[in-house]
């Protein structure tokens, strides 16, 4: 042992070593350890000393760092794969086969690239959830939260553009489903509302721009290849630099507790670095083992004439695809994701109290924010599970244990509401919904109010259920709508949005009512077979 240490010492004192690593002879004192962080281009993203809390694994779960690790894994394996890949319809699929059957480690590289991509999407979302729950987006970190949201969108887009490259049936149909959403963009998509007014058609709309044609073809493949390998990684890399820089400059989010000495810190090297290293090792073991045990999917070669039934988007978009059952594509595919993105970025600017609950998990101090955010996250994943597991041919409902060979009767016929009724309903919902929480001046206990509303909703369900011409299922949906509206749209904002300015209140309520409205529309569709609340076919406007 002594000999090895001596050898190491001699090695670190050679001129070559000294020229590579800054600092004098390593004496393993505090100054050396700080110098090690500051003098190294990669490590200096850390401060030299951090609060003890931020080294605790259960504070960050290492999610941000692991997301970056996954980005690096994807970059490295992606570069290796690029050596063997030609982005043309004639060759792309054959190159997949070559990777699988003849290229050394080709199958492994493809597997790990695929599984790391899925894992990255999950980890970036979880990272966002963690940052939200610890209040780490609050002043002065609002901007970095916004950058993070953009990075989440870019992560999804990176994964989505990569989906097309194997050029199998899975690829072109998932991308067809995904890009069809672009044609539903208001004004800019051939099938979106108001586009006919602007002369936007199949050959000049948003989807055409994305695909380089009217259907997924060789032009799309090159476009997605360049986006996947160069354009989006470039953009992501730039934003990652900003993101890390601001994490560092805004101060690590594990802010001191009110009664804590802000100067009480531990050295980053080795306390934090070793934990990061161990997290990375565990992630790599997980990825390598997964890639060893399971192969990335590869279906038959892409055939634009053979549509699989069902055709499914990549899993992280299946929640939105599931919403297509309840909404027109322009809402499910464009407006909702747009509102979600903008809404997420707006969160830090709408905060009623930017000093509350920063740097630690706190449900009690921020019940409103936590309830709304976690409901959203839960709904997003619940819809994904439904779209992934429960939907079979013709998008009919199949339980996981049911064979897709079994035929299912079609859904009952749907109808749209008369125009005046639909417009009236939406007008009242938003008009009244916006002002109601500010009109109620009474003070009440939130918990008991929610319990009362719940009991009332159960009563309503029973009453509607026994009414002639209604069923208990319809009663359930009425009560469901009533409950989430009264709790999310009245009780919570009345109690928790008292103190914020009018502008913030208005933005908050619009987002909240849109969020609740999504569920109300689902209830209308499932309980009452309402296809559209408002339908104006002249301008393709269906709500």
């Amino acid at each position, binding site marked *: 042992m002594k000999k090895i240490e001596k050898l190491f010492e001699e090695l670190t004192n050679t001129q070559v070593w000294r020229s590579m690593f800054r600092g004098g002879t390593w004496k393993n004192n505090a100054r050396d350890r700080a110098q090690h962080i500051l003098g190294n281009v990669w490590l200096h993203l850390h401060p030299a000393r951090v609060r003890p809390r931020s080294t605790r694994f259960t504070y960050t779960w290492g999610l941000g760092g692991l997301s970056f690790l996954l980005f690096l894994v994807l970059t490295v394996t992606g570069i290796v794969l690029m050596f063997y890949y030609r982005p043309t319809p004639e060759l792309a699929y054959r190159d997949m086969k070559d990777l699988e059957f*003849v290229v050394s480690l080709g199958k492994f590289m493809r597997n790990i690239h695929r599984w790391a991509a899925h894992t990255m999407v999950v980890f970036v979302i979880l990272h966002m959830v963690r940052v939200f729950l610890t209040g780490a987006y609050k002043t002065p970190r609002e901007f970095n939260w916004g950058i993070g949201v953009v990075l989440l969108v870019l992560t999804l887009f990176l994964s989505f553009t990569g989906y097309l490259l194997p050029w199998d049936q899975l690829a072109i149909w998932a991308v067809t489903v995904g890009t069809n959403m672009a044609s539903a963009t208001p004004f800019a998509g051939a099938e979106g509302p108001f586009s006919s007014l602007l002369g936007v058609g199949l050959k000049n709309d948003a989807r055409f721009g994305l695909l380089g044609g009217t259907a997924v073809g060789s032009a799309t493949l090159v476009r997605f290849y360049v986006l996947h390998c160069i354009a989006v990684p470039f953009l992501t890399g730039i934003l990652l630099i900003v993101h890390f820089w601001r994490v560092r400059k805004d101060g690590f989010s594990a802010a001191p507790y009110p009664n804590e000495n802000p100067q009480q810190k531990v050295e980053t090297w080795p306390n934090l670095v070793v934990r990061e290293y161990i997290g990375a090792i565990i992630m790599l073991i997980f990825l390598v083992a997964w890639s060893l045990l399971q192969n990335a999917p590869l279906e038959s070669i892409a055939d634009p004439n*053979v549509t699989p039934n069902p055709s499914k988007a990549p899993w992280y978009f299946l929640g939105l695809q599931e919403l297509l059952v309840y909404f027109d594509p322009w809402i499910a595919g464009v407006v909702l994701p747009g509102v979600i993105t903008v809404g997420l970025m707006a969160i830090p600017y709408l905060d009623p109290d930017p000093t509350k609950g920063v740097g630690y998990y706190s449900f009690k101090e921020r019940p409103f924010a936590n309830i709304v955010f976690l409901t959203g996250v839960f709904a997003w994943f619940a819809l994904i599970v439904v779209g992934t597991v429960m939907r079979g041919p013709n998008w009919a409902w199949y339980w996981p244990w049911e064979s897709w060979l079994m035929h*299912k009767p079609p859904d009952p016929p749907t109808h749209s509401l008369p125009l005046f009724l639909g417009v009236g309903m939406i007008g009242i919902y938003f008009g009244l919904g916006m002002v109601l929480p500010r009109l109620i001046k009474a003070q009440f206990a939130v918990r008991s109010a929610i319990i009362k509303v719940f009991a009332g909703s159960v009563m309503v369900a029973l009453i509607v259920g026994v009414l002639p011409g209604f069923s208990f299922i319809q009663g359930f949906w009425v009560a469901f709508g009533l409950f989430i509206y009264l709790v999310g749209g009245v009780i919570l904002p009345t109690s928790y949005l008292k103190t914020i300015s009018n502008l913030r209140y208005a933005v908050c309520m619009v987002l909240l009512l849109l969020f609740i409205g999504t569920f109300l529309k689902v209830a209308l569709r499932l309980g009452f077979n309402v296809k559209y609340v408002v339908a104006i076919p002249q301008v393709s406007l269906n709500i």
Partner: protein
Amino acid sequence: MDEKPPLFTRLFALRSLFLWGNVILFVVFGAVMVSDQIRGWKGYQKDFKARELTRTKDAIASAQTDDDKMRAADEYQAAQRIPMEIRQIVAPDFDAVDRCVTCHLGFDPLGNPSLSTEYKEHPFKATPNTAAQSIHLAHNVEKFGCTVCHGGQGTATEVKAAHGEVLHWEQPLFKGTLLQASCAKCHDNLADLKVNGAVYASEIIRGKKLVREHGCIGCHQIAGEGGPISVDLRDETSIKPLSRIDFAYTGLEHEDWTLANWIKVHFTKDPAQLVPGDPRGEFNTEPIAPSAMPPYILPEADADALTAYILSLNRSKILPQYLRPAPAAPEVASSNPVENGRQVYEKFGCAACHGPDARGGIRNYNYQWGGTPNLRRSVPTFTREEIREKINDGVAFVARNDPHGPNPPLYMPAWKAKIKGQELENLITYLQSLRD
């Protein structure tokens, strides 16, 4: 006194996590490297080399003359130099990269120009009989590759994947009679293709004959020739993608879900059960009748011949210079109007619906009068002019038994574009000559 901390704490101490994390990562990555190196084809190549060495060594030992000994020694040295490598035949004309010869080493055209080996078992055997040998020599392996005739997945180097017997590969190996379908992809002159004096693709010719006998083209078209009641056997059936096939009622195991099997069960089972439609309108807005195809329940060999023939209609991916067209066999039209009328009746597949003897009675789901009409009884009730009109314009709408049920699938198509002139007149004469 120092007490040892509990096992959990020790295991999850940073030091041990660091150590074991590195060790485990090293091990799993090692496993990846090893599994990448262990490939099925390497085993076959080692085996082949060992066999070659033994064979040539024995040849040296048993050599009688010096010349023989020298030759055997050369062969032995050649066997020693057999490299471990992936071999492939690139056949650009057929868009194929066939790595079959990586394991099927007997077919290596460079090492083995005669394409003949003494090995009796796959993957080393080549030319199971002289017939196969002459066919292989006529189709230069280096130019044609393997998969254009044999099917399978040429790029694959694992047994099941290479034989196409995996999910998401639609063309498994052609086996038995089905292999003859490949000849017909290029050769129209099947009857001239003889091996040892016998016609090789005889089952395709027989399949074609069976199609005519059963009157398949009364309902099905073949490249546009025939009735419009069901799908075109060349343009739709022979190239049908698996995802458009509903195997639910075939009783086939999932691994047997192939196009060939789908076609074959139509002849060995009742098609009305394979394609039950939706007669009560449960799953569709309109009720749909079950398949109208009669249950022929043919013997296995006939079903295979028909399947091979239908598969042989697939003409995709063949460059024109490889096609070997032949004039269609001249039709021998009888000069006797009644006899010629009978020939016309057979040629246009009237028998499919009206029966080979024109007695009708073929089932037609939800048809008011049950089976198809017996022409021996109905024809005498019409004038010649009326019969001509019926053949010309058809009977597009047939009366339903249950008014809420589906349209009966069988109806009389309009034949005026196909049956005309003297053929039409002779057909009418033939029909009028029939009596019950």
